C-alpha cells in the first residue's frame, strides 16, 4: 500500500507519523524546503481546552480529543508542551453572560475542570491583569507548545519508522485511471500511489480541485502578532483571552514556551490571492497593542522582539472539512484546518488512519512490531546541569562552543539540526532557537552560515533564509 500525504504541516506530519505505525509505504510531499513552515509556523501555539467551539461541530469533537492526547504525544516526540491553563476574562455584565455561555458550551463538549472564578481569585492567579476584571472562566487543560516543533518531531519520528519525506516539490496534478488516482505529479517527479491524503493547508482546496474531488473554498483569515522579550517573562502566567467575538477568540496575551510573551492575533479576511502573503500592517499591530494593554495595562510594550502574521485556512462553513472523497475513491481531504487545528491534529490523524482508511475505505493495515514511538529532541546543552554539560563537552568539544549568545545555543546543536534536515537559516532557527533571541541573529547569523556552508559542503552564496529565492549574500567582495 503506497500512501502519499500532501503537505507537511502539523496535520500532514502527524498523519504520516500515525501511518508509520503500520506496514505501509508512506511518502510525505512538501513544497517548502522544510516541514511545518506553512500555517503551522505562525499561530498562537495554544493547545486549546475546547469550550470555544460550538457543540456538534467537527472541530469541537477533535479539539477536546486532541487536547487529551498532547501530554503523551509531547513525551513520545520530546517537544515542549506546558499545560498552564487559560482564563477568559470578563469586564462587564454582558461579558459575564458570554462566560456563562462558554461554560455551558465547554461542559457540553466534555471539557474537564472548567470553573468560573471571581475577581479576587482571578487576580491572585494573574496578578498583572487589569484590575477592572469582573470574573473569568478558568480552563486548566489549556496549554502552550511550539507548533512547528510538533510537525518537525512527528516527521523525524515517522522517518525513523520508514516514512519518506520529499521537500521542495509542489504537487501540481494527478494521473487518474477509472476515477482513481494512480500517480501524484509534482514539480519534479511522479509518484505511483494507492491512496492520497490532502493536507495542503491553505492550498488544500486547489489540490482537491486538481484531483476532481469535493472541496470547500478556502480564504486566508489573517492574524497579526507581536512577540515580546523574555525579560518580561513571568508578567503573564496563563493563556489570557478576552471574551470571544463573532469572528475570533479575540486578541489574547500568553507566555511562549521559552519565556517570551505573545500578543495577538487580529482577524482579517483576505481574498484567496493573498494565501502566501502573511503581511503585517500598521493598523493591525496597533490593534494588537491596544487590546493587549486592555488585558495587561502594565505590560511594557517597548520590549518588542519581532512582529509577524499567520493565515488561517478559513471556509464559509467555519469548520474543518475532513473526509473521504465520494468522487475520487482513494482521496481523503483534511481541509479548512482553521483554529483549533494545532490542538485537533493528533486526534484527526488517528481518526483518518483508523476510521477513514481502515474503517470507511476498508483497507486492512497491519501494525508494525518494530514501531518506535519515541523521538529524542536536540539537546539544549545550556539547560543541562553543569556536570552533565561538562561530560558532553568532554565527549564533543563543540557542545561547549556557544554560537547564539541570546539563547545559548552551541555549535553542536546547529550541526545536529543540519543532520536532521535543516537546509536554510530558518531550518536551523526553528529547530535550535538560535537567531530567535532578542538580537535576532545579528551576532550569530554569519557564524551559522559558516557552519551550514561547512556541513553541507556548499558555498555561502547558495544558502537561503527559507525558500529557494530568499538568498542571503551575493557575490564576493573580491576574488
Amino acid at each position, binding site marked *: 500500500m503506497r500512501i502519499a500525504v500532501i503537505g507537511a504541516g502539523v496535520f500532514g506530519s502527524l498523519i504520516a507519523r500515525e501511518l508509520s505505525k503500520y506496514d505501509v509505504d508512506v511518502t510525505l510531499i512538501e513544497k517548502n524546503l522544510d516541514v511545518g513552515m506553512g500555517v503551522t509556523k505562525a499561530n498562537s501555539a495554544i493547545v486549546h481546552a475546547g469550550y470555544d467551539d460550538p457543540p456538534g461541530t467537527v472541530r469541537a469533537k477533535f479539539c477536546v480529543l486532541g487536547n487529551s492526547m498532547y501530554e503523551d504525544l509531547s513525551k513520545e516526540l520530546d517537544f515542549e508542551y506546558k499545560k498552564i491553563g487559560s482564563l477568559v476574562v470578563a469586564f462587564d455584565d454582558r461579558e459575564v453572560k458570554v462566560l456563562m455561555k462558554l461554560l455551558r458550551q465547554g461542559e457540553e463538549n466534555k471539557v474537564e475542570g472548567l470553573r468560573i472564578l471571581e475577581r479576587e481569585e482571578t487576580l491572585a492567579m494573574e496578578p498583572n491583569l487589569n484590575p477592572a476584571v469582573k470574573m473569568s472562566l478558568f480552563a486548566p487543560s489549556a496549554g502552550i507548545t511550539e507548533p512547528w516543533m510538533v510537525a518537525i518531531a512527528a516527521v523525524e519520528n515517522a522517518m525513523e519508522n520508514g516514512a519518506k519525506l520529499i521537500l521542495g516539490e509542489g504537487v501540481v496534478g494527478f494521473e487518474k485511471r477509472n476515477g482513481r488516482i494512480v500517480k501524484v505529479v509534482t514539480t519534479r517527479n511522479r509518484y505511483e500511489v494507492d491512496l492520497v491524503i490532502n493536507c495542503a493547508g491553505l492550498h488544500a482546496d486547489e489540490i482537491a480541485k486538481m484531483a476532481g474531488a469535493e472541496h470547500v473554498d478556502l480564504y486566508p483569515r489573517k492574524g497579526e502578532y507581536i512577540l515580546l522579550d523574555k525579560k518580561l517573562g513571568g508578567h503573564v502566567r496563563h493563556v489570557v483571552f478576552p471574551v470571544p467575538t463573532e469572528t475570533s477568540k479575540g486578541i489574547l496575551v500568553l507566555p511562549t514556551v521559552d519565556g517570551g510573551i505573545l500578543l495577538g492575533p487580529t482577524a482579517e479576511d483576505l481574498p484567496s490571492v493573498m494565501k502566501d502573503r502573511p503581511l503585517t500592517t500598521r493598523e493591525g*499591530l496597533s490593534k494588537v497593542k491596544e487590546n493587549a494593554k486592555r488585558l495587561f495595562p502594565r505590560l511594557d510594550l517597548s520590549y*518588542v522582539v519581532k512582529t509577524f502574521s499567520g493565515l488561517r485556512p478559513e471556509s464559509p462553513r467555519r469548520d474543518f472539512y475532513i473526509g473521504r472523497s465520494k468522487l475520487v475513491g482513494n482521496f481523503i481531504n483534511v481541509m479548512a484546518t482553521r483554529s483549533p487545528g494545532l490542538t485537533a491534529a493528533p486526534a484527526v490523524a488517528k481518526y483518518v488512519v483508523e476510521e477513514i482508511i481502515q474503517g470507511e475505505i476498508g483497507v486492512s493495515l497491519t501494525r508494525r512490531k518494530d514501531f518506535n514511538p519515541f523521538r529524542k529532541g536536540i539537546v539544549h546543552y545550556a539547560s543541562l546541569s553543569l556536570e552533565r554539560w561538562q561530560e558532553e563537552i568532554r565527549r564533543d568539544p563543540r557542545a561547549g*562552543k*556557544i554560537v547564539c549568545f541570546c539563547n545559548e545555543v552551541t555549535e553542536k546543536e546547529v550541526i545536529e539540526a543540519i543532520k536532521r534536515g535543516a537546509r536554510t537559516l530558518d531550518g536551523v532557527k526553528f529547530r535550535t532557537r538560535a537567531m530567535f533571541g532578542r538580537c535576532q541573529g545579528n551576532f550569530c547569523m554569519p557564524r551559522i552560515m559558516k557552519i551550514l556552508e561547512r556541513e553541507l559542503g556548499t558555498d555561502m552564496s547558495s544558502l537561503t*533564509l*527559507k525558500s529557494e529565492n530568499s538568498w542571503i549574500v*551575493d557575490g564576493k*567582495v573580491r576574488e
Partner: protein
Amino acid sequence: MKVDVVVIGGGAAGMAAALKVSEQGARVVLVERDERVGGILNQCIHNGFGLHYFREELTGPEYAERFKKALEEKDIEVLTNTFVKALDVREKKLVVVSEDGIRILETKALVYAAGARERAFGSLMVPGDRPSGIFTAGVAQRFMNVENRLPGKRALILGSGDIGLIMARRLTLEGVEVVGVVERLPYPGGLLRNVIQCLEDFGIPLFLSSTVVEVRGRERLEEVVVAKVDENFQPIPGTEKVFEVDTLILSVGLIPQIELLEDLVEVNPTSKGIATSNLGQTSIEWIFAAGNCTAIYDLVDYVTYEGEMAGKYAALYAKGERFGPKVAVKAGENVMVVQPNWYDPSEELTLYVRTRKVIEKGRLVVGSFEKTFEELVPSEMLRVKIPRRHLNGLSEIVVEVKEE
C-alpha cells in the same frame, strides 16, 4: 582558577581594563565569547580611530591590534570562544564555558565590558513581508570584511548616524548601488564631515524626516516604502515613495548589553546602560563596568579611557582599597544622556553628555562649573573634565545645558 580581576568582554574597554589591571600588578583574566578580541573594532575597517588616544588616525582593526599586541606582551591570559554562563554575586564566582569545558573563575573584582548590540529589525515593527535581505550594519560589515561577501546589489540604508553614512560609502566602493539614506530626524545623525565624504561626494541622496514604513518581498526583499514623518515621527499618509532594492541596511542605534548584570546592579536611566561612578564602579562594589555597556560612546578613544579607569580601580579594589562615598550625577535641563551616574572624588570627574536637541549656543552648568558650547547636537557627545573645586560640598550634581 583564582584571580584578582576577571574582565568580561575583549572589546576596546575590556582590553584597556585588562592592561591596566596587569599594570597594577594584579592577576587578570579576560573572557571573550567571540573567536578573537577586538570586539566591534574588527568590523570597522574605515579610518577615524585613535585620534585622541594615539594622536594618529587608525582603522578599527589597527586600533585593536595595538591592544592585542600589548595583551600578548604583558602575557595576559585571554580566554576566547568562552562564554560567561553565570555569575554568583555572593561568592564572587563565574561559570564560563568553552570547548575546553566548564570552568569556575574565583575572583576579587570584576570588570564588565560587554559592549553594545545593534537594534534589531524585528523591534522596529516595520509592517510588510519578512524577506531575506534586511541586515544590520554590523552583519553587513561582517559579510564584507570577514566573509568576503556582498550583502546584495541595490541597497537602501536606514539611519544616518556615522555608521550608516560610512556603510553607504563602503557599499558604493564595493560596487553595490546605494539608492539613499533615510533618517527620521530633520538633520543627519552623523558628523557633517561624513555627510560630505560619504554621501555628497558619491551623489547618494539623504532623505531627512523620513522613515521606512513597509518592506515587500515574498522571498528576497524587493521593495522598501519610505514616507515622510511628522514631529512625533508618525508617517504622513500620501508621502510614500517606493524604492526597488534587494537590500536594506539598518543603522538605527546601539543598545548597551547589560544582560548578565540586569536586575543585579543599578541601570543609568539616561543611557539604559550599567550605572557606574567615574571610577567605573557599579552599585555592587566589587563589580566595575566600562565602555558601550554603560553608555554608547562616540569615540573608541573615550571607551579606552573609561576601560583603563575601571581596570585601575578594579585592581585597587582587589588589593583591598575601598572608595567613596559617591555623589549622584543627574541629567537636568536639555540633557538626554549623562555618564557617569556617580561622582567619586578619588578621581576628577570626566563627564560625557548628550543634549536632548540641537542647541545653537548652550551653556553647560555643573555645580559652579560653566562652559559655553556652539552647535550642540544629540549625535555628538561632549566630553568635559570638571575640576574638583567646582563640585565641593554638593550632595547631588545636576548637569544642565542652558540655551543662550
